Each structure stands twice: as C-alpha cells, then as structure tokens.
C-alpha cells in the first residue's frame, strides 16, 4: 500500500473492440479520500473504464493502478482493495440479504468471526440489517443498491467503483445513498461514481467528462468553468426568470445578439455578448411580449459546461485540458 500514490491512476488507458475504440487514451488521477464523478453520454466508455480498473476487461494499451497496484499485473491485490457496484443489480435475487453477504464474505476469504463483525458493520452503515432475512429480489430499487453497496464494502476496500448507483431509484433513496457515499469518503475511501445527474456531479470533489471514449475535461467544478470554450471570451451568461418559458425561448433565440439559449425548468439560460446588459435583455424580451420576472447574471452550471464541451467536440474544435 503506497499511501503516497493517488488512489486511482489512468495512464493512456485504451480499449478497442475490433476497429472500434471504446476508451481512447484515458489519463487522469484521483486523489485519496475524494469522490470522482465520471460523466458522459451512454455508450461513451464509462462502464468499460470501470471494468478495466476492476480487472473485468483487459486494456489494449496504457496502464492503470488502483491503490498503488497495477491493474494488469497485480490482479489479486487490486481485487482486495476495490469494491464494485455495477450498473444493474448483480446480486442473487433468490438468496436473502444475509445469505448474499455471507457468500461474499466467504468469497473474500473473511474468517467467520471477522465475517460476522463486518456484516454487523455494513448492516449498521447501510441500514439494510432490518431486511436481513428478506430475499434480495424482493427489495425495492433503493434498498437493492444499498445491499450492493453493503456487499461491496464487506472486505473494507480502499477504493469503490460505482457505476450509476442511483439510476432508477427515487429521489429520497438517491439523497440517502449520497449521504452514505460522503460518509465513506470521510472515512478515507476513494470513490469513482458514474452518473447522469448533474446535481450529483456537482457534489463530487472533481469530475471527468468522457465523450466517445475520450476524456474531454477533468477537474473541479471551478476549473471546468474556466476552461476555454465553455465561456467564449467577451460573453456573459444570464438566467431569465419567466412566467411562460416557451414564448420567451423563441423570442430570445430571435434576438440578433443571442449566442446560446437553453431551457432550465422554468428559467431560460442565455449567453450573450459582454456588452449586453441585464436591463437591455429584459427590455428586449418584454418588448417582444414576454412576461419576464427578472434577469440575473450566473456562472455556467456543470450542465452548461458539458453542453458547451460536447458541442465544441462535435464541431471538431478539439482541445486538450
């Protein structure tokens, strides 16, 4: 255990299936005890990257390490230091909660006394203990995820890989699961979490955005906002609060100085030249018959960042971070 090494290191990791490059030259590090949010559209290579770290998929080239252990050469040490929660529920539905934990405790070679102790620990941590005798297949989505987490934590891994752990579970369960993840990070566990939810991504210590197998941005939220291409020089971003967002959207798009328009719930986020003031924007929209409650200057959200990055990338304006 090299405590100086970052918890997760990807060094030019590449995976190809046939002539299709699924993960292309991925390089990043995740410091210990942090939560790394891994984002990107479906099929962009997030799961494949996680599987390479878990030893389920062998990279074609490049290197990686987890907790200081080389993912290619030190499979046993890597397996001992990681916990993996996969995208779909992957425990045994016809076994009870307790039996699933018992099996994985044995699979990780925990001696009986230790197994019992660890079961009690994860019962307490996740609250799944009250369903100990229930068949895993009969749990709700949120509890299934907690069971998956409990199982992955049995052997006290230093690094956790969670592949969309909150997909398809209700908002309360989602919030509770994240509270759990924070508690783990506090205890020094490093977490790599993939998600589609921007609010989750914004809670991460740092995020990476992968698109078509390429990591096109990585850093903290603040760093990402400052990336060139997210905010073109000489532009500002406003949130327009409006009663009726659709007409406002059409009206805003028709403005000659408008650079970008996106609907965010009942608000409109717009990007305009730096010379356009709040008052001018509000006046122009009201003139076109829109009911505008107010306009305020905003920082780009993570979603704005990724929309901008993805557009730049599909426009062919590739850039490195």
């Amino acid at each position, binding site marked *: 255990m090299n405590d100086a090494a970052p918890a997760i290191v990807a060094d030019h990791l590449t995976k190809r299936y046939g002539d299709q490059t699924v993960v292309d030259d991925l390089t990043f590090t995740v410091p210990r005890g942090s939560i790394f949010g891994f984002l990107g559209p479906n099929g962009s290579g997030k799961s494949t990257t996680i*599987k390479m770290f*878990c*030893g*389920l*998929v*062998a990279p074609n080239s490049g290197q990686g390490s987890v907790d200081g252990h080389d993912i*290619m050469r030190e*499979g*046993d040490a890597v*397996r*001992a230091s*990681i*916990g*993996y929660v*996969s995208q*779909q*529920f*992957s*425990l*045994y539905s*016809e*076994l009870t909660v307790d*039996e699933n934990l*018992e*099996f*994985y405790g*044995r*699979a*990780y*070679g925990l001696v009986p006394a230790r197994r019992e102790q660890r079961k009690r620990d994860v019962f307490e941590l996740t609250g799944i203990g009250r369903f100990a005798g229930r068949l895993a297949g009969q749990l709700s989505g949120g509890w299934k995820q907690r069971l998956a987490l409990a*199982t992955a934590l049995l052997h006290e891994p230093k690094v956790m890989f969670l592949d969309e752990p909150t997909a398809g579970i209700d908002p309360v369960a989602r919030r509770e699961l994240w509270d759990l993840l924070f508690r783990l990070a506090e205890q020094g566990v490093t977490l790599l979490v993939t998600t589609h939810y921007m609010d989750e991504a914004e809670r991460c210590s740092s995020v990476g955005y992968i698109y078509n197998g390429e990591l096109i941005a990585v850093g903290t939220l603040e760093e990402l906002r400052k990336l060139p291409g997210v905010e073109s020089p000489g532009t500002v971003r406003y949130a327009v609060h409006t009663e009726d967002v659709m007409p406002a959207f059409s009206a805003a798009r028709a403005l000659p100085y408008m650079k970008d328009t996106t609907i965010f719930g009942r608000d409109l986020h717009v990007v305009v030249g730096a010379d356009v003031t709040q008052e001018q924007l509000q006046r122009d929209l009201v003139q076109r018959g829109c009911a505008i409650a107010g306009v305020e200057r905003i920082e780009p959200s993570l979603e704005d960042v990724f929309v901008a990055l993805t557009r730049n990338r599909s426009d062919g304006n590739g850039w490195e971070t």
Partner: protein
Amino acid sequence: MRPPLDFRGFTAVLYKEWIHVLRDRVTLILALALPTLQMLIFGYAINTRVEHIKTAYYNEDQGPIAIQALNALAASQDFDLVRAASSRQQLQSDIVAGKVHVAIDIPPNFSADVLAGRTAQLQVLIDGSDSSIAQEALASSSLIGQALSTELRPQATVSAAIVDVRPRMLFNPSLRSANFLVPGLIGLIMQIITVFLMSLSIVGERERGTLDQLLVTPIGSTGLMLGKIVPYVIIGFVDFLLALLAMVYIFQVPIAGSVPLLLALGVCFLVAALGIGLFVSAIAQNQLQAILMVFGFTLPSVLLSGFMFERELMPVIMQWIGLLIPLTYFLEILRGIVLRGAGLDALWPQVLAMTALGTLLIIAASIRFARTAS
C-alpha cells in the same frame, strides 16, 4: 490476469450454490424425479410383459392333437389367434406385412405323429423386429410346447419332448434383452439431466449480470467450477440411486457385480458429464446457446455411445467421436458390472479414460472461463 487453476472460493461458491439448489423447489423436484420417471416410462416401453400377441396359424393337419395344441395356445394370455392362414406362404407374408407377430405352422402329419408316439414338430415363426414381443413369444411358445408334451404322454420316460416347438426368428436373430437396455437407459438419462443442469449454471450468471460481481472477488476459476459442480454431483448421485433401485426392484434386473464399485464409478461418470456441461457453460454466451449446444451433444450420445447401436459396427471415425462422450465408457461399465459381474480388473481402461476425459473437460472449462472472464 487470472490463473486458470485457482481453487480459492470453492467453499463460498458451494455455500451459495447449495442455497440456489435447495431454494428452487420445482427445479429440485424435477431434477430428482425426472430421471426415475423417464426410466420407468421408457423402461416399460421396452420391457412391459407382452400379452395378446397377434398370431396367425396354418393348420395343415386338421387332426385332434392339432386342435388341442391350438386351444392350448389360445388359452394362454400370450397369443391371440387372429388369422387362420390358407397356406404356408400366407403365414410368412402376414408377418412381413405386420398383420401378426407370430405364426404357428402345424405340419400335415402332426396328430398322426403324436398318436404314434413319435416326436411331432410345431414350427413357430417369430417377428424379431420388436425384441420384447419376440422374447415373450419365444419363451411362451416353448413353455406351451413342454406343457403339451407332458399332457399328451404323462408317463413319458424318454426325455425327448413329444411336441417339439421349433421357433424361428425373423429379421433380428440376436435379440437384445431388456436387461441390456435398462442399464444403458440409466446412463443416458443421467448424462442428459446433469449436462443440462450444469450447462445453464455459469451462463446463467453471465446472463443475469451476476458474473462480474463474482469476478471482482478473489474466487479462483477452478474454485468456482468445483463449487458449482458438487451440488449437481449430489443431485446426480441421488438420481443414480433411485434409478438403480427402480432397475433392481421394478425391472427385476439384478446387479451381478459389486454395488459399491458401481456407485463409485457412477460418481466418476457424473463428474465427467458435469465437465461437459461446464464446458458448454463456459463457451456459451447465453442460455439459449447453451441449450442448443447440449441438444447437439445429446443425439450423438444416444447414437454413438453404444446405447442404441453396436459401436463395433460403426465406421472408425464414428467410433472415435464416441470416445469423446463419457456415456460411451459408462455404458460399458454399467453393463459390465450389472450384467456380467465385471470388476475393476476388467473395466480399468474405461474407468481411466472416463476419469481423464472428465478432468480434462473441467480444466479446459476453467482455462476457457479464465480467458473469457478477462
């Protein structure tokens, strides 16, 4: 990457598989009941005591003894005299046409011979294509012949029978007995059920998405394989015991050789058969593929193992293919021990080959699995 021979996690997998097996009651009951049930159904189809065999006769003699003989045949439950033929040629053609299975030919001087104290011949033509009917007809007709002889000359001092029944087998002169078929049936059914159960196990984990979670643990590929095999060896062994009980007590086929040896070699056979299932499971990507592969393996097992046809009569290449089927060896072991009372001294080549085949299959499955897993 993963080493192919790694026994870690064996007891963990065994623990889990055991729960799987015991919790799925329907599958468990099917797995335990199907073999015996199938054996009873097919065993009886082969072995039921045959009665009311359709019989034709040609009575050229017309004398009193001929009538008496025909009455004796008709009185037995075994023969139904359904056709009176008008010529010897017609007897033959009735059998060829499948109208009757047995034909009685009474020669012209039958009564006269008996009354004069000479041995009279009664010719019985038997359709041998259905071995169970033919056997029954053979046994029954000679019994009736003996009974007639005793009745017609009660004080006979000479040993020669006065009515000499001359059976003639048509089409299948070397009858294969039911004793020959029932042990084979046990081996065949055991192989089919264990290969099926096993082949769905790993591919099932793959399909349900539970395999990746298994593979991030330190469980070794061989540990996983063996942990999955053992519960099915136990199920297969219970099947084997039930089938043997049915064979001995229902089909009345005694075991001539050593029962402990038979049971021990049964376990060897189960491991080999499960090795095939495991191999299928390691190469199939989904359960449908696995089922089709098992299906593709089942028919050669029936046709090439010696269950149905003599292996010696097959083309050499077919004999070689048969050597890749564990059932081929086990059939010889089963028939050897059950019918001829053979021991290990005679059967060791088969035992060795079968065990080697099973071990190779499990190693191959482990290697194949270790490769696809990473």
